[in-house]
């Protein structure tokens, strides 16, 4: 265990950024978002405020190029006779240049335990066969420095999913950190984390492991007081498809849903994406960008199928998080970060969905 004074953080960050890219929450136009550290960027309050988007961008960016296609079109009349041989007349010639994979290490600082769990969820999707190499390369080169939640908010409910916000060393992070008074405690967990720590050792003072005990106890007691941490997941999970899918609760609760993508874009685990082409001056760029199952064009086909109504799309999102994903990967794909609770324009969110089903069950029980 090491420590550094919080007032010296900027020195620490610029030291880390000297050797590799550093991604951390940055205050920009009043909001906290993960961004690349630059000299002079605003890091005021980044230790205690929740970012709007989770850090999943660092591994699965909202926009990334997959490959470029160069097109060379030869008009038929310009073809030399020799080329016309064997039924292969060259007209449109293509070359594909795949985008280079991430090959340099980078550090992402300030992810919370829920964000790290979110990455674990993404791992399930992107690292199972067939592996997504773009994601894998980022994952291999990323060093996660997680931060214990100093001030959990009322929208937080990560403990419901078995996440411990007080002790990120239990998560898949490489380094765990805690705010203890005026200092930041720093504990490397993995080899990657050790290596990073070695590089910045000159700035760190050693500390006792017990230094963070009070902070952990404090956070745990706060979590107990928060309203959403009592949420029960009974009735969700593996094999509940029929029961939940056919429930009429969806119809009752979906109406306010605007069909915007806010909840999916701020979510640490939503991984649906779109692949599109962009024609540039000298080629075609094939890129991937986040998409949302809430959008009407998400699954739209020429024949008009499927999931044509907002209630179906609404149901899909929550069924996917709470039933389909557990079915497939044996874990919930919600981490209780509370971002959708904070950001939904209509104040609709996964907590309300779970509670609505709970109430329904109670009422049904009362009627029997």
């Amino acid at each position, binding site marked *: 265990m090491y420590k550094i004074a919080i007032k010296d953080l900027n020195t620490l960050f610029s030291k880390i950024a000297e050797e590799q890219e550093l991604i951390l929450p940055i205050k920009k136009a009043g909001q906290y978002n993960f961004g690349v550290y630059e000299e002079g960027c605003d890091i005021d309050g980044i230790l205690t405020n929740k970012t709007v988007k989770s850090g999943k961008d660092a591994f699965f960016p909202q926009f990334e190029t997959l490959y470029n296609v160069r097109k060379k079109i030869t008009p038929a009349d310009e073809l030399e006779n020799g080329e016309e041989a064997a039924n292969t007349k060259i007209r449109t010639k293509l070359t594909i240049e795949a985008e280079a994979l991430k090959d340099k290490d980078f550090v992402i600082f300030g992810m919370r335990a829920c964000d790290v769990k979110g990455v674990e969820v993404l791992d399930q999707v992107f690292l199972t066969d067939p592996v997504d190499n773009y994601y894998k390369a980022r994952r291999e080169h990323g060093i996660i420095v997680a931060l214990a939640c100093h001030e959990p908010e*009322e929208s937080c409910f990560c403990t419901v999913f078995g996440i411990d916000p007080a002790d990120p060393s239990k998560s898949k992070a490489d380094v765990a950190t805690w705010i203890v008074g005026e200092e930041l405690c720093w504990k490397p967990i993995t080899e990657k984390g050790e290596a990073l720590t070695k590089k910045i050792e000159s700035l760190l003072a050693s500390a006792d492991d017990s230094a963070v005990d009070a902070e952990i106890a404090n956070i745990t007691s706060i979590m107990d007081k928060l309203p959403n941490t009592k949420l029960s997941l009974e009735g969700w999970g593996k094999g509940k498809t029929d029961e939940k899918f056919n429930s009429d609760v969806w119809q009752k609760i979906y*109406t*306010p849903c605007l069909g915007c*993508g*806010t909840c999916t874009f701020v979510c640490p685990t939503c991984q649906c994406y779109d692949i599109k082409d962009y024609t540039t001056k000298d080629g075609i760029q094939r890129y991937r960008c*986040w998409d949302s199952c809430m959008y009407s064009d998400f699954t739209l086909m020429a024949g008009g199928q499927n999931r044509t109504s907002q209630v179906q799309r609404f149901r899909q999102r929550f069924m996917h998080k709470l039933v389909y994903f557990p079915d497939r990967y044996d874990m919930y794909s919600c981490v209780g970060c509370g971002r959708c609770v904070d950001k939904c*324009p*209509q104040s609709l969110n996964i907590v309300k969905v779970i509670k609505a089903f709970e109430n329904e069950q109670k009422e049904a029980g009362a009627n029997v």
Partner: protein
Amino acid sequence: MQGLIDRLTALLSDGTVARVIGWKKGDMAYNPEPHMFETAESLKDFVYDGFCGANLSKMMIEASKLEGKTAVCLKPCDTYSFNQLIREHRVVRENAYIIGVGCRGKLDIEKIKKGNKGITSISGTELDGSDDIKIETIYGDKNISYKDALLDRCHVCKGKDHMIFDEVWGESKDTADQERFAEVEKIEAMTPEEKFAFFRNELSKCIRCNACRNVCPACSCRKCIFDNTKFDAQQKANVVSFEERMFHIIRAFHVAGRCTDCGECSRVCPEGIPLHLFNRKFIKDIDKFYGEFQAGKDPEAQSPLTDFTFEDIEPGERG
């Protein structure tokens, strides 16, 4: 509030209306959600307080296609949007029973949350509540003045009168205490470099979630141009490109002359982008170039962009 619930219950019970669009109590102190109540019994969850900022007029597009009348609770500024929707033939006036609910300004939870984490309860936000609201958090209690927690849009309130209603419930208050175009003028006075830096800084936060569009009562196209796969417009890329700026300019342009300045876009933006600055710039220009115009004030008025005079100023001129 009980008076309002009683009235709505009566309307539902005597068959005047088949359903009520209002707000349903949230699971926290500050998150009521828009809801369609179909039974008198379900109205026990009805709520109306300072956090009921949502403009319910857009929900009437779908509701006015249903059988029977729909009672809808509209605040004074929402009635402008409703009028505009009538103007565009998107709602059927006869199918709506408009309850003009009083308003003393709506609260911005982001402002309240600043420095107040772990909120467990908030009191004093009702229409007849006090000038101070009391916030209880797990980290301690605090009082702040209602006025300081108002949404930005309420500081340029369009007035306390409902433009259209069947009956009014509760007192309204004009909360305007700022110049409507002050922010716009501040930007206009900047150099091109400063203007660009300002907007780039704000818009680079955009995540293209489309909440601004989907909540906007003026964005009532059945199929948005930005959802059209057959056209180049559907680019979901952002962050690195010009797309998000393009999206916001075009969106503002599409609602120019129809935007009532209800401020929903800025309220819902998860990144807190002041999107109303685009709309308000168009409103300011329209006022200046073509005469004062408030969309939704008069459902008969011709929209400035579907109108012209022979003497209009030339593009690029400053009027």
